[in-house]
């Protein structure tokens, strides 16, 4: 009996420990965000968003970095989306079980685990040097597109997998070809899931810093990019640059810029979760 009481006690103790662990990360993050808000919120105003970078902390703004992030986001989407979705369709709907498909399978799983900075080295050599794009928005977008490609492929495949087999059967039975089935039935049916995956991939891209530093994106760019071949900065690099300055004013700038970056990231995640829930309820 004593033993059983002891077991019960351990069980309850673990439950409390479990709750503690579950909340630990979230609480720490909340405290941190809270302290950043305190530091940075009063720094955020229209001037901060529309000003060019400056050597003086109180005059510096994030305009060029923000525009750089927008450029990167748009171009990365344009490059990664068609390739990623097409690859996923091939693997999920066309590929037969053979050596090639299992090689593709292993390869994609491996690419998803390659550190982002390695993509930076790839981009530096291939896009910046060999293809002579220089440290341009285009080179950055190509680099990030390759980085998020595995994420887009994996999530698109999951979305296609969730479409019931009966829909495929019904379409084929009516005499539809494979591509007709894919384009008219499967893609519309899985669009919510695909969209979720893409938004999550892009939210990853918008927060990436290291690969863009490696390809040579700059911390100080006097003008927002006007063409894909222009030099650029992005929000995370601007933040990194401000963090590494000794003056306190820049730390406040960094906090303010982090608020904006986190806002963008969280909004993208919220949209993704919204689409996922709406889409999942469709199949239940």
């Amino acid at each position: 009996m004593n033993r059983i009481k002891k077991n019960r006690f351990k069980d309850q103790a673990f439950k409390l420990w479990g709750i503690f662990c579950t909340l630990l990360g979230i609480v720490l993050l909340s405290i941190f965000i809270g302290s950043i808000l305190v530091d940075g919120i009063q720094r955020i105003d229209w001037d901060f968003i529309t000003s060019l970078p400056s050597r003086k902390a109180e005059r510096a703004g994030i305009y060029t970095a923000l525009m750089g992030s927008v450029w990167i986001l748009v171009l990365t989407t344009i490059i990664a989306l068609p390739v990623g979705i097409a690859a996923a369709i091939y693997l999920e709907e066309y590929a037969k079980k053979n050596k090639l498909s299992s090689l593709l399978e292993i390869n994609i799983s491996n690419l998803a685990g390659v550190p982002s900075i390695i993509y930076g080295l790839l981009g530096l050599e291939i896009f910046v040097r060999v293809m002579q794009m220089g440290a341009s928005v285009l080179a950055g977008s190509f680099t990030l597109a390759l980085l998020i490609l595995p994420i887009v492929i994996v999530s698109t495949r999951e979305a296609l997998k969730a479409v019931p087999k009966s829909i495929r059967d019904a379409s084929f039975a009516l005499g539809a070809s494979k591509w007709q089935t894919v384009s008219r039935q499967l893609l519309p049916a899985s669009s919510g899931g695909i969209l979720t995956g893409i938004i999550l991939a892009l939210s990853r891209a918008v927060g990436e810093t290291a690969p863009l530093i490696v390809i040579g994106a700059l911390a100080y760019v006097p003008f927002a990019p006007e063409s894909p071949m222009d030099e650029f900065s992005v929000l995370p690099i601007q933040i990194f640059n401000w963090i590494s300055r000794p003056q306190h004013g820049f730390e406040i700038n960094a906090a303010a810029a982090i608020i904006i970056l986190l806002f963008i990231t969280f909004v993208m995640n919220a949209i993704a979760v919204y689409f996922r829930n709406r889409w999942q309820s469709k199949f239940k």
Partner: protein
Amino acid sequence: MKENQDKIETPVRKKHKLQAKEVKVFYDDFMAIKGIDMNIRANKITAFIGPSGCGKSTFLRLFNRMNDYVDGFRMEGNILIDGENIYKKNINVEQLRKQVGMVFQKPNPFPKSIYENVAYGLKIQGIKDKSYLKDKVEDSLKQVGLWNEVKEDINKSALALSGGQQQRLCIARTLAVEPSIILMDEPTSALDPISTAKIEELIYELKQKYTIVIVTHNMQQAGRISDYTAFFYMGELIEYDKSKKLFTNPEKQQTENYITGRFG
């Protein structure tokens, strides 16, 4: 008040091992058991029969509180074991389940060795004495007639056994902790006829020492091995009597319809 009621029942304790009093079970808004009173006798085999969804498995699982983990589960009324209310506040559920063993529909050995499977219940009670454990494992496996088949392979994975052997192992695992009651939820429905016959034989032997409640889809089985049979329909207990009587001369028309195969 309730305590008093419990005490009034004490004279029948010995005979009535398990008692249900005005038991209702809800899953959220759905009423799965609609008020059942029932007394189950000690050292007998009681069979629960009825069509799918009639509530017989839900009712069985009340006796070791396995429904506690089901989302939206709620119960009214009382379940008594040896006169003690097992749904009262301070009951120790783990202790209860040692007293009330359960065998499931599909054999579900742990992915461990045969030895570890049988010793599991003792080990979680903190028993570490190797020779005691060894004796107990051997003893339990002998009780289910598995010892001679597996004594060479006692440290091999239980998953390598056949389905029938696995189910007997699961029974041995239950016996090792010395329960007084064994609940069986369609224990042979996933097995072939030969394994089924072996298990039925085993159940029949076990009633010397244990009170056994068995849910079955198979009416021949209920007729062959049980002393008492209860027929459930739509969450109600329709008829409950000696098996001989219920299968040869049921009181209720619904029971007759069911046992003669007119529905279900």
